[in-house]
């Protein structure tokens, strides 16, 4: 699938915004990695380096009150919905000014006010949950759409199957986006998957069309997402998108990713979504000064977020026993 932009100025403005989003995601993840090396990110973290075009492209196709359901690899999807960098970075550092004041951590980023309905760290579980949000929109007659991101390896767990069938039969306004980065943690997904395209080759099992897209091309991703979201909003039911991409680094913070063949890594680095997209914008007439200014702006944003996150206080006793229940507490007895 290719980008089919008519080069109107709104389109170009959107493309510039998508480029900015990708630059921001790249810069944020790079900084998160640096802070991990400084031992400031205490727990685990899973970066989207190399996969930025998907988060940016899909987010650009969403309305402000649509919902995102993300995974442990969810920094990018959270930021792409407009959540500021500081609370996200502070959450990675376990600080009180974090998005969940340190209670969730890198794997559970949530910002309901931005439609980010949570990041889920048990493989597959959030696909049924996204169905529930979509059901709620359908029942209440809002035109909200739930968008649910997950990886290639996730297509082999039971919850994937249940959610896809469920969404299909209830014609739910949910868009499933499988980011196929070829790898699970350290195992190649094709070695443990019965079909070549783990999501697209299974769409027919749920009565859905197969949708394969170049996940390193934000425009292409935007187009398929826009179509899928429009279908969902029109009551035409769910879609399952498989976006082909690659993670530039290891699976999680501690993983150097050495199990991957050099030539594979090189081939994909050569298809890095950022320089490709930058070149496309330049070719479309966006000036180098505009691009450089935007990149500098993002760099400043990251610096500021870093300063603020580092300055964040440690969370304390007052938070520990708070918010198990809706009354704000955790008492299980009288």
């Amino acid at each position, binding site marked *: 699938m290719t980008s089919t932009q008519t080069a109107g100025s709104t389109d170009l403005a959107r493309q510039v915004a998508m480029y900015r989003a990708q630059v921001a995601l790249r810069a944020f993840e790079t900084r998160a990695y640096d802070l991990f090396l400084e031992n400031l990110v205490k727990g685990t973290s899973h970066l989207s380096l190399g996969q930025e075009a998907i988060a940016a492209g899909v987010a650009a196709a969403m309305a402000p009150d649509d919902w995102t359901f993300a995974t442990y690899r969810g920094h990018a999807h959270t930021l792409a919905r407009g959540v500021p960098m500081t609370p996200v970075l502070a959450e990675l550092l376990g600080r009180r000014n974090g998005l969940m004041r340190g209670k969730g951590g890198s794997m559970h980023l949530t910002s309901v006010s931005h439609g980010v309905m949570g990041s889920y760290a048990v493989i597959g579980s959030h696909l*049924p949950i996204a169905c529930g949000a979509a059901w709620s929109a359908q029942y209440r007659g809002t035109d909200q759409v739930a968008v649910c991101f997950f990886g290639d390896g996730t297509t082999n767990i039971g*919850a994937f199957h*249940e959610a896809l069938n469920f969404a299909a039969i209830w014609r739910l306004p949910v868009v499933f986006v499988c980011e196929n980065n070829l790898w699970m943690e350290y195992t190649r997904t094709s070695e443990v998957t019965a079909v070549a395209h783990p999501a697209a080759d299974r769409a027919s099992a749920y009565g859905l069309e197969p949708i394969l897209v170049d996940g390193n091309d934000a425009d292409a991703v935007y187009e398929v997402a826009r179509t899928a979201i429009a279908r969902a909003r029109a009551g035409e039911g769910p879609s399952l998108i498989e976006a082909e991409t690659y993670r530039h680094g290891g699976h999680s913070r501690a993983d150097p990713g050495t199990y991957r063949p050099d030539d594979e890594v090189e081939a994909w680095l050569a298809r890095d979504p950022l320089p490709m997209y930058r070149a496309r914008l330049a070719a479309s007439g966006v000036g180098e000064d505009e691009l450089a200014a935007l990149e500098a702006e993002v760099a400043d944003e990251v610096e500021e977020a870093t300063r603020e996150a580092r300055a964040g206080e440690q969370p304390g006793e007052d938070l520990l026993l708070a918010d198990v229940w809706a009354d704000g507490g955790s008492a299980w007895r009288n």
Partner: protein
Amino acid sequence: MAQLTFREAIARGIAQEMRRDPAVVMLGEDVAAAGGVFKGTVGLLDEFGPQRVRDTPISEQAILGAAMGAAMTGLRPIAEIMFSDFFAVCWDIVVNEIAKSRYMTDGQVSFPLVIRSGNGGGLRFGAQHSQSVENWAMMIPGLKVVVPSSARDVIGLMAAAVRDPDPVVFLEAKALYPTKMDVPDGEIVDALGTARVLRSGDDATVLALGSMVPRTLAAAERLAGEGISVTVIDVRSLIPLDTATILREVARTGRLFTVEENPRVLGWGAEIAAVVTEEIFYDLDGPIVRITTPHIPLPAADALEDLAIPSVERIATTIAKALSD
């Protein structure tokens, strides 16, 4: 006043809440057109229509995931897991997702939902359709756990569960479905976290739950004939747990017995025994005795199942013996 079976009370309780609040919706396997395999939801589809009462595929993770996603976006779903044994196929959604998400999002989301399920033995259904899982649910931080023992409580506790802003696991003892009682007309709304003293005595306090409540009352009656007077408390709500009532009565009587359908090890009584032993140790006059199903899977044959689950006879003789030791 109307005579209602326990199973009829479920539909009445749900209907009461669905009439009040259009955000209350229901889903599960065979709950709509068929009115539930235990006939607990008869009439709801007719009254509330197919948008609010929905049959699902055999996809328990999807059922509870849907309930969760709906609850966090404005609905108040009631989901059915047909037999509580099947919580095991969707346990992740219950314990890792529904129970934890409020805490880990720093309170950004709430889960006002109810998960109903047929629980426990007595129907000769064998090991995979008979288990009592109240202790499974009790030990998970973030879940409320309610186990009614009568038709009236079904209605009142269902209303309380539906109105509660937190996730409630609502366990219906299958053995009680056919039991009947007179239930007042009109709205009934009870409170979670309240145990009920059903009978007051001085020699011991006996705690029971769900299907064990009528048996324990019968045992207490028999013991009364032998000159032993016991307090019987229907625990009703494991989380929140009404320790105030329990500790008060145990302290007053000096002895504690629990009557539990769940298998012995880490049954709900273990927690209460531990709380009592920590907090009112010096008020105890003797050992705490748990009367439970043995620590085995439940056998199918009627003769064996009857040996496994605490009977009136076993309850009465165990208490009498312990008090005379």
